[in-house]
């Protein structure tokens, strides 16, 4: 039986997350179809059809799907679910919003943040802020799951899937009012190969500018701990951790971050971790490959200068 992957996009660009979820789908079975629901999203459909190994791209292009509200989206997925044994989406804010609603309508459970495929019905997922890994066998007929994208490598763009238009249109009870997105020239936090994160020790949003300079020097993204977000230094969507973004870049530089369990949950699978902190007892040093005990306001400008 086939696998359905729900594509993630903003109606203009297909997110890289989708290529990673397709990779997870292919670890389960060969027949992977993509659902692109949106509005005026022809460019997304084009990009989706090129993802390696995708059999078919199903397109629902209607105004009601423009903003990805969960109630109409879930009805749409439900309408085509009969042909699939697995339904996958990225464990993004959109996937997390939509998929449990789909699962409940199908009367099946859902697996969240799958990091490994053991077999077509058995998967591994982290629990307790990543303190343990649970291997879970699904007993349901349809396996609905969100995928932790940092655990999978994106598939290539050498495919040529056929495109099929879907007719159904499902109304939403929800009225979309507005959206404000954080503008940034830097790479997307989830996809960046270098992430420079700051914590409470930065002291102000102005001081975050030095981390931005460092990130720019390394071509990386800027992240933050909860303390820095709560203090208003940076917007919420930069939070790395159990309840924020989960990242696994090649290089993660934690600056002025103590390293609470909830923060480590979001970055401890990074390839190389660097910690710069004044406090030699900070728990972050226990997971750092390279630790530097120093005042960040002296160390970071020096680091920028050396690069």
């Amino acid at each position, binding site marked *: 039986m086939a696998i359905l992957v729900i594509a993630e996009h903003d109606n203009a660009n297909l997110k890289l997350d989708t290529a990673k979820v397709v990779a997870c789908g292919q670890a389960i079975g060969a027949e992977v179809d993509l659902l692109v629901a949106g509005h005026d999203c022809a460019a997304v459909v084009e990009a989706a059809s090129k993802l390696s190994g995708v059999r078919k791209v199903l397109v629902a292009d209607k105004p009601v799907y423009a903003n990805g509200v969960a109630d109409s989206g879930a009805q749409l997925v439900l309408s085509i679910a009969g042909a699939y044994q697995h339904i996958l989406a990225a464990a993004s804010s959109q996937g997390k919003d939509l998929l449990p609603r789909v699962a409940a309508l199908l009367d099946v459970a859902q697996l969240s943040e799958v990091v490994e495929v053991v077999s077509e019905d058995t998967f591994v997922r982290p629990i307790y802020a990543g303190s343990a890994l649970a*291997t879970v066998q699904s007993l349901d007929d349809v396996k609905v799951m969100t995928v932790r994208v940092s655990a999978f490598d994106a598939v290539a763009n050498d495919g040529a899937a056929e495109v099929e238009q879907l007719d159904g249109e499902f109304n939403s009870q929800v009225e979309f009012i507005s959206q404000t997105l954080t503008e940034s020239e830097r790479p997307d936090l989830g996809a960046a190969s270098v992430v420079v994160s700051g914590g409470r020790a930065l002291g102000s949003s102005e001081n975050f500018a030095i981390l931005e300079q460092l990130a720019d020097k390394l071509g990386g993204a800027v992240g933050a701990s909860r303390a820095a977000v709560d203090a208003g230094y940076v917007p919420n969507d930069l939070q790395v951790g159990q309840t924020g973004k989960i990242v696994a870049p090649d290089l993660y530089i934690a600056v002025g971050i103590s390293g609470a369990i909830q923060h480590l949950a979001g970055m401890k699978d990074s390839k190389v971790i660097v910690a710069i902190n004044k406090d030699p007892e900070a728990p972050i040093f226990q997971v750092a490959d390279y630790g530097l005990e120093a005042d960040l306001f002296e160390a970071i400008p020096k680091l920028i200068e050396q690069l």
Partner: protein
Amino acid sequence: MKVLVPVKRVVDANVKVRVNADNTHVDTANLKMAINPFCEIAVEEAVRLKEAGIVTEIVVATIGPKAAQEQLRTAMALGADRGIHVETDEELAPLSIAKLLNAIQGQEQAELIILGKQSIDGDNNQTGQMLAALAGVPQATFASEVKVEGNTVLVTREIDGGLQTLKLPLPAIITTDLRLNEPRYAKLPNIMKAKRKPLDTITIDSLGVSIKQHHKLLKVATPKQREAGVMVASVEELVEKLKNEAKVI
């Protein structure tokens, strides 16, 4: 307007749990337990709506062992009016919990249901969405701002790229993000008062919900531990190591 707030008893957020010796689960015996932080935010939001004169009654509900009544009392000390405890020692999947909550909602007919976005033990982030599906009502997940306006609610949500505002007709379901509010502390007189507030204990059977097993937990393992790193003495040494040893810059 009536608000229903489901809450969960979990291991305290500051406690590091360990996998048990036979790799069947995490060891939670004798650990400090608490109300799930996101549920606490949900209770706080309901209490603020009551203080603003919008909400008249706050009902808190929990599904779990007898000890979970402590968390209902905590919620009542924070301002909830009464509690419903569905007593069970079984660990239930979010879908089963959503079905039980839907049965409770069938009796309570609350206009608004506020839940935490996820529990910090299972990290599922599913129950609110599933309950919305079962109840056939709209959902606004990961809320950082809630404004009730007549028969609708305006909710600002935390999404990956920033913030989004949606308008939902009531009844509706909201799940809370960390930024929604700062929960208050329960004062001693309120803790004493909460002991006298009504708390109904009911069984799964009385709700007429049949519970199915959806998952089999085969194994629980400790994640691969990172090897201890090295401390460098200077920025120069750090740059040298990152260039030549780790080769990441």
